[in-house]
């Protein structure tokens, strides 16, 4: 039995690790004694919200996880896996690195990318694309500009070096993220289904190897750090932020993938949050086994580290590998080829205990499952937020209509959230691996899979203003819009991963937002038959100014059986017929137009009818397969006018929507500003060749979807009825220069 310390002292230490007195008693019951200091540290991180989901688990259970093609379900492994046919599968996941990025944007974002990459290649998958969803405060603030520059450079640093293309994502700017930026990184990898690797420790006597970077004091207690609010004093947490080495991770990636066909590997797990502690107890718990490890054998980069520090360090680029006994030389050979050092640190044992030694001395002895899976679960108090009634009672129709719609369009295109993100993605290598079929800017990113006809379309999305004004509807729309983006390119949605960014869950109003958002997501997932395959929850996103808007970021993945049937988001040639698909209402609540032109973020956001949404998907996917669509673009922030302008902004050539008689399509009951800039859901702009117009109209009718011919693709000036006539060249410049003019040309 490990040597014990004074009880009162250990209680105090437990409290400083975020463990409540009740949790401490629970730990005593599990162990049958007082815990040692290293044990308190281990429970502290493993039972933090970041690792245990002790607050969010009951709510996350609402989300559908089942699906005929799901090979690895949410929560089972490092990432979910979905079968896509032809013996292939995809592993994907999105994860937050908000808190580290708030204090040290470059390394915070870089290590966020590093962490999500490891989650994917531990499944035996080759990472083929990265995406990210970023949110910052208003760019007028120097802090927001510094954070944007740092985060983008950090993502570029890691992704470019390791050679996985960053093919898309989203960037939003809103005061709500002032001082608490969101950095959500997503990775997708491809594997042969039969080569799936699991994070499992089994087979008594099998050796446990530590591979990769040496352990230092960096990131000590990072998981606990992520489970606190950001305060003025957070800068003192900078030592909690790790430093990334993408080169080392590249070596680890290649070595691990090279290991798969040798059959020498039983299980593989990365050391992310809670590092050595998490990887040892989780693999043992999954394998229903025990494990004995010796921290004295863990390679270190600093002298004088205590067992406690080794157990809790979050140094990057480290893996735990469980090998087949007798095949140690195979493991060592592959790693030494890549100049990596694999150190045997322990072995799998019978029973269920994780025993940690420091040389001869036993420093911790805990049932692995108790650490990994048996944290207490809390039912958090919740209460409908007081602000809701006030914001929802606002009637946008009480506002005057704009006099100059052309001016409104320009202001919207100049808004950093809508403007071109070229300033961002130009810093990312988005073409390495030569699979990027759609360069950034389309509704969804699209890659091909070499050696197969298939393509994979991915979109990240969330409109957090909607989620703030109506969390249920906002959650539903986040899922639907991400799916709509994927559908627009011709992809059939097969699964999603989510990153749920919220404030402090101990605040009943925040927890209410959280549950309602998840319920909205659930209903959308069920209607579309899309399972959730994993992700993460990031609470405590608060700065001294308050909580962020509820932001459940969705990473939607779709598959095209034939990548040649892809549909671009931009107009392709003059003369094509433009259709507006879907119905338009007076939906001004929570719109971008309202915020930018009237300075109001209120009202009831657009409602989403899931039945209609599904019909729209069926129509677009069918029309795509029938090769009727030349282009297809989803309507979102900025509504119809912004969408029509964007359709003309292709890289090759500026094209313009000519809709001289657009008035005729506007329903009488709908205001002009709502028609042009409103954000009614379930709408797309598509173009078809003249000869196909009739066929498309017919197909829409058969599918019960309303569509209206609104004009034709031309050149020169955008013409939207009598309301807007503007040079595409000027609009394009406005849209393209918006970011560089605020943050500097690169």
């Amino acid at each position, binding site marked *: 039995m490990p040597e014990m310390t004074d009880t009162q002292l250990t209680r105090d230490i437990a409290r400083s690790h975020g463990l409540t007195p009740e949790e401490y008693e629970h730990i005593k019951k599990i162990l049958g004694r007082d815990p040692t200091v290293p044990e308190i540290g281990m429970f502290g991180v493993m039972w933090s919200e970041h690792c245990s989901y002790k607050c969010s688990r009951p709510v996350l259970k609402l989300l559908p996880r089942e699906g005929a093609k799901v090979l690895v379900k949410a929560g089972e492994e490092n990432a979910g896996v979905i079968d896509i046919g032809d013996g292939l599968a995809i592993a994907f996941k999105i994860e937050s690195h908000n808190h580290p990025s708030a204090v040290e944007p470059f390394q915070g974002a870089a290590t966020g990318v590093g962490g999500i990459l490891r989650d994917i290649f531990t499944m035996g998958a080759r990472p083929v694309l990265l995406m990210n969803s970023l949110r910052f405060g208003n760019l007028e603030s120097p802090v927001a500009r510094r954070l944007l520059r740092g985060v983008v450079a950090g993502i570029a640093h890691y992704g470019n070096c390791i050679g996985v293309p960053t093919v898309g994502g989203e960037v939003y700017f809103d005061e709500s993220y002032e001082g608490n930026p969101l950095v959500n990184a997503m990775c997708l990898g491809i594997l042969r289904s039969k080569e799936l690797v699991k994070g499992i420790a089994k087979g008594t006597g099998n050796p446990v190897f530590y591979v990769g970077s040496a352990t230092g004091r960096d990131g000590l207690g990072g998981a606990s750090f992520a489970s606190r609010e950001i305060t003025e004093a957070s800068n003192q947490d900078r030592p909690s932020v790790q430093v990334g080495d993408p080169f080392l991770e590249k070596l680890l990636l290649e070595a691990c993938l090279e290991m798969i066909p040798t059959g020498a590997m039983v299980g593989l797990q990365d050391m992310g949050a809670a590092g050595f502690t998490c990887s040892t107890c989780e693999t043992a718990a999954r394998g229903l086994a025990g494990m004995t490890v010796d921290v004295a054998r863990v390679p270190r980069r600093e002298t004088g580290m205590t067992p406690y520090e080794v157990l809790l360090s979050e140094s990057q680029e480290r893996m735990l590998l469980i090998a087949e006994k007798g095949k140690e030389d195979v493991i060592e050979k592959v790693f030494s080829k890549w100049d990596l050092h694999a150190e045997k640190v322990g072995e799998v044992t019978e029973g269920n205990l994780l025993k940690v030694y420091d040389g001869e001395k036993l420093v911790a002895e805990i049932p692995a499952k108790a650490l990994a899976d048996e944290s207490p679960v809390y039912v958090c108090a919740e209460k409908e937020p007081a602000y809701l009634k006030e914001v929802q009672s606002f009637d946008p129709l009480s506002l005057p209509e704009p006099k100059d719609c052309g001016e409104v369009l320009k202001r919207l295109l100049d808004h950093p959230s809508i403007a071109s993100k070229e300033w961002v993605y130009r810093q990312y290598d988005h073409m390495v691996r*030569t699979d990027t079929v759609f360069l950034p800017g389309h509704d969804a990113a699209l890659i091909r899979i070499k050696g197969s006809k298939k393509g994979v379309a991915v979109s990240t999305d969330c409109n957090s203003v909607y989620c703030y004004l109506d969390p249920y509807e906002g959650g539903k729309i986040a899922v639907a819009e991400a799916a709509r983006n994927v559908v627009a390119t011709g992809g059939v949605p097969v699964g999603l991963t989510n990153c749920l960014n919220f404030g402090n869950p101990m605040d009943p109003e925040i927890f209410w937002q959280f549950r309602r958002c998840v319920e909205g997501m659930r209903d959308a997932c069920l209607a579309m038959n899309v399972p959730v395959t994993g992700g993460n929850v990031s609470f405590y996103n608060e700065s001294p100014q308050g909580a962020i808007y509820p932001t459940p970021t969705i990473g939607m993945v779709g598959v095209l059986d034939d990548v040649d049937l892809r549909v671009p988001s931009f107009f392709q040639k003059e003369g094509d017929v433009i259709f507006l698909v879907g119905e338009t209402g007076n939906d001004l609540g929570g719109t971008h137009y309202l915020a930018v032109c009237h300075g109001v973020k209120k009202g009831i956001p657009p409602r989403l009818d899931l039945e209609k949404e599904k019909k729209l998907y069926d129509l677009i996917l069918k029309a795509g397969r029938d090769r009727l669509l030349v282009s297809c673009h989803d309507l979102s922030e900025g509504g119809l006018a912004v969408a029509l302008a964007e359709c003309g902004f292709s890289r090759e050539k500026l094209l313009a929507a000519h809709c001289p008689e657009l008035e005729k399509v506007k329903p009488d009951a709908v205001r002009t500003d709502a028609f042009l800039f409103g954000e009614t859901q379930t709408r797309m702009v598509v173009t078809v060749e003249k000869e196909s117009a009739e066929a498309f109209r017919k197909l829409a009718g058969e599918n019960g979807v309303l569509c209206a011919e609104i004009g034709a693709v031309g050149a020169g000036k955008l013409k939207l009825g009598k309301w807007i006539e503007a040079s595409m060249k000027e609009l394009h410049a406005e849209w393209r220069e918006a970011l560089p003019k605020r943050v500097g040309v690169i």
Partner: protein
Amino acid sequence: MKCSVVVFPGSNCDSDCFHSIRDVMSQPVEYVWHKETTLPPCDLVILPGGFSYGDYLRTGGIARFSPVMREVARHAKTGRAVIGICNGFQILLESGLLPGAMLRNRSLSFRCEYVSLRVENSGTMFTKNFKKGEVVKIPIAHGEGNYFCDEKTLAGLLAGNQVVFRYVTPNGAALDSANPNGSADNIAGIINGKGNVLGMMPHPERAAETILGSQDGKKIWESLLECLK
């Protein structure tokens, strides 16, 4: 045309070059690990892009000491073809197979985008299928592509017709505004005096299939195929 793609720790365009040669050009190709002390018999050695040794020390600064580089130099000395792309170009500079050095982009930021290049010398084995003065679209992706050399070296390159590609506007003008990284004289690619070692920052392997948006880079492989088969 037998090809070898050298793999350094940190190379990340190795599989792209391999795919381009094997699947697009249907030519035999194999990977060569950087620790090898011999090259397989081959006509073309490709030093691919990436971040060899994580760009530690300097770009290409450590890779030049890899054992295989002695063999690459010997291969070049016999007059056989070597192409260094992006990091491969940086390695060629560091190993002295081409003159000059790389500085960080003048913006100090990584840039990935399609650029327009003018083919300045269509008389090489790498460029014979281009027309002189032709403007082509090939992407770049680098943080350190700001080519630098002293005036004497530059004069020598110009006199020897060794500047093969320049960054230009889509209309073919070598203006400063078309220079993505600040490189001397808008240089995007140079060749050695003998005409068998080419270094270029743009990635021809990324522009060799219609599905990727351009086939202009493929012409380099096609030129080589005609010369080396």
